[in-house]
């Protein structure tokens, strides 16, 4: 998906932004309604294990997904449902993964947020925070070695993950190799229950950029327009050889860490602050101010999203779970080297 805002005069600019904004909004909406669906399925006991949502972070996430081409590399994290859809991930993938369908990309061997399509540049996260960044580096270095025209790799992490050694090693590695990495930090002010004050002591996470010798941009993660512009610019700079780009977005997680968590620890002052705004509402107000969409259109789109999701869920609920007797129980690609010594 290419969206370079090439300058064809203000009019063209506005038209393109309108198109992009609308596309972004509708993907945000789809992600939000989907997350709501997962939340209710969880409450109904229809999902095994935890459920982790991106509520409040859709604007940022969708902007990254839209700024990338489907030939690029994207390593989403736990709150990137919107970015996944924007990158082109089929709705089916997340539904099948959460519902444990054997037809899902992970064949129900892995679940909830741990899924992707490595062959298509969509890297499936492991749980260990920070660990995916250097994997993106490797994919980018490989493409450079193979001589494929510079593709960009983007990945998202939270404020908490900036404290991992993996984050540090990987960002430094990307800077040394001057890789086209776009590293997006979603500062939602909490790592599970841990507030920023217990996670870092710098004035802003943006202050880290200089220490790695990379370019950084701070943005309002609740405003779709700023997110679209920042993401598009960062991706372009990376593609043009500008090396790693750091984006630090301020926002708030408008849900628990997982659906088991009531997030009672989130401070009222943050909820009241600009970062506490719901990016979806912000976008809806903006759409109406700009006369880009009417309230009835918004309502219709929401209906559409809901129907699309209900149909997908209904379809997946009829799909089989995995059959242990059909599993090869072999971790190796080289079957001949498997010990078969499995009991």
């Amino acid at each position, binding site marked *: 998906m290419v969206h370079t805002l090439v300058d064809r005069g203000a009019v063209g600019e506005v038209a393109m932004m309108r198109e992009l904004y609308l596309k972004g909004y509708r993907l945000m909406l789809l992600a939000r309604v989907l997350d709501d669906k997962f939340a209710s399925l969880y409450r109904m006991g229809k999902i095994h*294990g935890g459920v982790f949502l991106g509520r409040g972070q859709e604007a940022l996430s969708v902007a990254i997904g839209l700024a990338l081409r489907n030939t690029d590399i994207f390593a989403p994290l736990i709150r990137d449902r919107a970015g996944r859809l924007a990158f082109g991930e089929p709705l089916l993938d997340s539904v099948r993964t959460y519902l444990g369908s054997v037809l899902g990309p992970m064949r129900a061997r*892995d679940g909830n947020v741990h899924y992707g399509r490595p062959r298509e540049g969509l890297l499936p996260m492991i*749980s260990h925070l920070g660990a995916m960044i250097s994997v993106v580096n490797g994919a980018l270095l490989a493409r450079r070695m193979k001589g494929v025209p510079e593709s960009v790799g983007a990945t998202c992490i939270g404020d908490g993950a900036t404290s991992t050694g993996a984050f540090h090693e990987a960002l430094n590695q990307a800077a040394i190799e001057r890789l086209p990495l776009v590293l997006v930090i979603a500062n939602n002010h909490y790592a*599970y229950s841990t507030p920023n004050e217990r996670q870092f002591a710098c004035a802003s996470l943006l202050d880290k950029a200089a220490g790695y010798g990379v370019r950084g941009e701070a943005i309002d993660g609740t405003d779709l327009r700023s997110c679209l512009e920042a993401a598009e610019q960062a991706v372009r700079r990376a593609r043009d050889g500008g090396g790693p780009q750091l984006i630090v977005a301020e926002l708030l997680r408008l849900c628990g860490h997982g659906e088991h968590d009531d997030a009672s620890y989130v401070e009222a002052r943050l909820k009241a602050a600009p970062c506490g705004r719901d990016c979806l509402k912000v976008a809806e107000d903006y759409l109406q101010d700009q006369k880009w969409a009417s309230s009835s259109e918004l309502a219709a789109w929401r209906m559409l999203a809901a129907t699309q999701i209900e149909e997908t869920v209904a379809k997946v609920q009829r799909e089989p779970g995995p059959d242990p007797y059909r599993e090869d129980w072999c971790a190796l690609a080289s079957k001949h080297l498997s010990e078969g010594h499995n009991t």
Partner: protein
Amino acid sequence: MSITYLDAIREAQARALAQDPKVFIYGQDVGAFGGAFKATRNLAQHFPGRVIDAPISEDAMLGLAVGAAIEGLRPIIEMQFADFSTVAFNQIVNQAATLHWRTRVPCPITIRLPSGGTSGSGPFHSQSLESVYAHYPGLVVMTPATVEDAYSMLLEAVAIDDPVIYCEHKYLYYHLKAEQLPTEAMPVGKARITRPGRDMTLVAYSAMVHEALAVAEELATEGTEIEVVDLRSVKPLDTDTVMASVARTGRLLCLGESWPWGGVTAEVIARVATEGFDLLDAPPQRLNAKDTPVPYHPNLWAAHRPTARSIAAAARNLLRL
């Protein structure tokens, strides 16, 4: 009043904090929030400044614990999941585990690892790493299987002058209940005969002890008496108790929830085979999880680890039933 395995872990920490000003707790979200599993609920309030939230920096968490231990404190480190201790691996096996041997300075650290599989948790929230840590010199590795042991062994862990890997099984957190906390306890390093029996020795630890007991129950109805040995700690490993049991039964089946290559079942069988060969009336047997990551889906998870069903089959096989 009834106490869960998880309550016992919280109570033991409360008591350790109350008894000894040198004890403190450090881990992600352990403070006001009370920890991902609520194993430290209310402790921060009762022991201000001694239950400290850590950043997502497992390596530094362990390094800090070693430094505090050098200064005479007795840190308890909570890993949010055992699986994440791989990030702290270097500080555990190369810093903490070598300190006393290199310098004579003790390193009393308790590392709590919420371990083991629960349905729907997947490859990175289900691991059992006791065998990995037991391979290294300088570590004590505990695997409590009962509410009472969870309590008394955690207190022991804090009292021991060495780094202790305390593997608490997440599956037991809520499933296991006791009427009250124990007033006395077996010494660390001693295995327990949980259920006596003359026909076969079934060695287990942690959650597998309960699968073993279920199987013993089942086979008892058929007139077969299985002796269930709960190792309690896998390092040190109480070879004597295992050997004595095998001396009585002549048959050994060893259970582990972790992966098949190496590990506890291999070590137990290797010791019995080398030191108690003549006690065996039949080849010793073992049952582990399958040699793949721990699967997410309940169907797969149930087939990945030993279950009462697969254990019973192995037992019958060994007993030629």
